[in-house]
């Protein structure tokens, strides 16, 4: 069983839930930006939730199937079509041998997850099938898919056709998007006024937003507490002695444009960070389009842990709903 790529979309990559364990060497976890949606898509078509699927951003690919398979598309609202016939989102539908899966225009969100029964069966690299394009590692030949590629698909079952995720179990960012942040790391480098402004201002997603990092614009420039720069840090007040960067950490080079590091993050560098987006909100970032108004919301650790538990409960509910059908 295989899927032939007729058109690659914009930047479509093979992703699963990532390759933890190599960040200390600069190799990021990767995996779907919106993990909740990728797990849901896999469960819909009867896969293990960690099977590999495709992640497409802004524009969907065009794929021809060599055998019958089940497909589910989750995440952004970008309607799927089989031989031109619209299919429901967050629902397992059948694609027959020779049929073509394509996509309508993006209506909301940014990224779709496409799961195929059996999973995309590219070789496992360092424990994962996720694509890390900068390192030419994993995925299909270490790069986004391209027209002419033939993606191998593992053995799957057609049993769960029609399976669907209830509306209240689909998660989407609000308007404006709110990202919860625990301030910390080098937060103390900011003046009290800059600390207030960071959370008070409305920011907008910049065009430079990808799997490595999401950049934001529109807030007031952040001012620094004056100091003599430590040896080795570099001369700009936003510089630090190169350190590790947490996933979700927010760096602000020069104090002007916050960048949230995401799944394909660089593992470290010399820019100070003001804090970190909580784990429960990381999936939402992958669904933000450029220009989306965004607020950073200050939370405590206890609030972050409660939000995490809430997300886990939501997924548990989704998982149970699958078993009932």
């Amino acid at each position, binding site marked *: 069983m295989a899927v032939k790529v007729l058109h690659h979309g914009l930047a479509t990559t093979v992703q699963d839930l990532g390759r933890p364990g190599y960040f*200390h*060497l600069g190799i990021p976890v990767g995996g779907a930006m919106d993990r909740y949606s990728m797990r849901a898509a896999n469960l819909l078509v009867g896969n293990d939730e960690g099977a590999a699927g495709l992640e497409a951003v802004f524009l969907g690919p065009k794929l021809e199937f060599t055998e019958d398979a089940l497909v589910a598309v989750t995440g952004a609202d970008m309607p799927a079509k089989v031989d031109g016939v619209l299919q429901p989102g967050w629902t397992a539908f059948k694609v027959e041998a020779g049929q073509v899966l394509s996509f309508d225009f993006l209506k909301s969100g940014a990224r779709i997850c496409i799961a195929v029964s059996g999973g995309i069966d590219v070789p496992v690299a360092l424990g994962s099938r996720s694509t890390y394009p900068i390192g030419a*590692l994993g995925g299909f030949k270490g790069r986004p898919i391209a027209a002419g590629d033939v993606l191998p698909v593992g053995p799957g079952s057609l049993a769960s056709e029609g399976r669907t995720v209830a509306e209240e179990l689909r998660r989407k960012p609000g308007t404006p998007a709110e990202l919860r942040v625990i301030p910390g790391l080098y937060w103390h480098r900011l003046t009290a006024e800059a600390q207030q402004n960071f959370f008070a201002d409305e920011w907008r997603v910049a065009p430079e937003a990808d799997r490595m990092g999401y950049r934001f614009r529109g807030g007031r420039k952040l001012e620094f507490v004056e100091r003599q720069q430590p040896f080795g840090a570099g001369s*700009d007040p936003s510089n630090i002695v190169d350190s590790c960067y*947490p996933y*979700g950490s927010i760096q602000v080079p020069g104090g002007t444009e916050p960048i949230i590091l995401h799944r394909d993050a660089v593992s470290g560098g*010399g820019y100070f960070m003001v804090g970190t987006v909580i*784990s429960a909100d990381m999936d939402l970032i992958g669904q933000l389009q450029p220009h989306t108004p965004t607020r950073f919301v200050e939370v405590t650790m206890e609030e972050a842990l409660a939000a995490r538990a809430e997300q*886990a409960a939501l997924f548990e509910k989704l998982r149970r709903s699958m078993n009932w059908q």
Partner: protein
Amino acid sequence: MTTRYSFGGDEHLFVECSEEMSLEAFFKSLSMVNGVRESGIRGVTEICPANASFQIKFDPDTIHPDDLLKEVRAIEGAAEKAEPVIKTRIVEIPVFYNDPWTHETLMRFRERHQDPNGTDLEYAARINNYASVREFIAAHSGSPWFVSMVGFVAGLPFMYQMVERRRQIEVPKYLRPRTDTPRLTVGHGGCFGCIYSVRGAGGYQMFGITPMPIFDPTQTTSYLSDFMVFFRPGDIVKFKSIDREAYDQAVEDVDHSRFAPPIREVSFDLAEFHKDIDGYNAKLEGMLYGG
């Protein structure tokens, strides 16, 4: 050196051993990293060492962040008493300084540089008070470098020059980062040297290029067949200046799996190093090139 703890969201604990860079700060961080690793704290999923700090990734469903913090703090005292001695290796890395590829790239991004009318090498030589680029290259390749962090992108080493602080090369990063850097560029930013393991964006000044791959996801490079990443924190690097002919030969040797970088096992003792830096470095070099 005051240790500072801060949470990076609900999944990371960030530990800064010192605000400023020094080998003492690196060794304190290394001892704590080893201590955390050996203590096998439940819920710790990954430990990432950096130059003068480190980061622990943990699963808050397994351990409450406050409990993790308590356990890591308890390790700090013992780690500070640890002897700054490691068993490591020294490796020779050939560098073709002032090569045509980094030169072409730096000319393309001149408007992002502090000195649009010169080259990165000319600029670095001047602001570090070297009379010529030749003298600067002699200094860059004249002393060993200590790999104090691996990261940024896959397998990229951050290297700390093993000389007195007043002799350390320091340069600012580009005013605005480049969108392109040739693979295997030897660069420098702040007090750190680096080798770009892959092609991509970068802000460090560019001095030259090495023919020796340091990251190979296909693992077809002979000395990367066991693991795709060459460098480990604690490695000691000695650069060797080579010309175009030697560079081309080395590239051909890499392609034919004949390239074998000189590597020797050594131990490094920070206290001994500080007693006589030049003498200690000469001894290290003796081990690299001796029998």
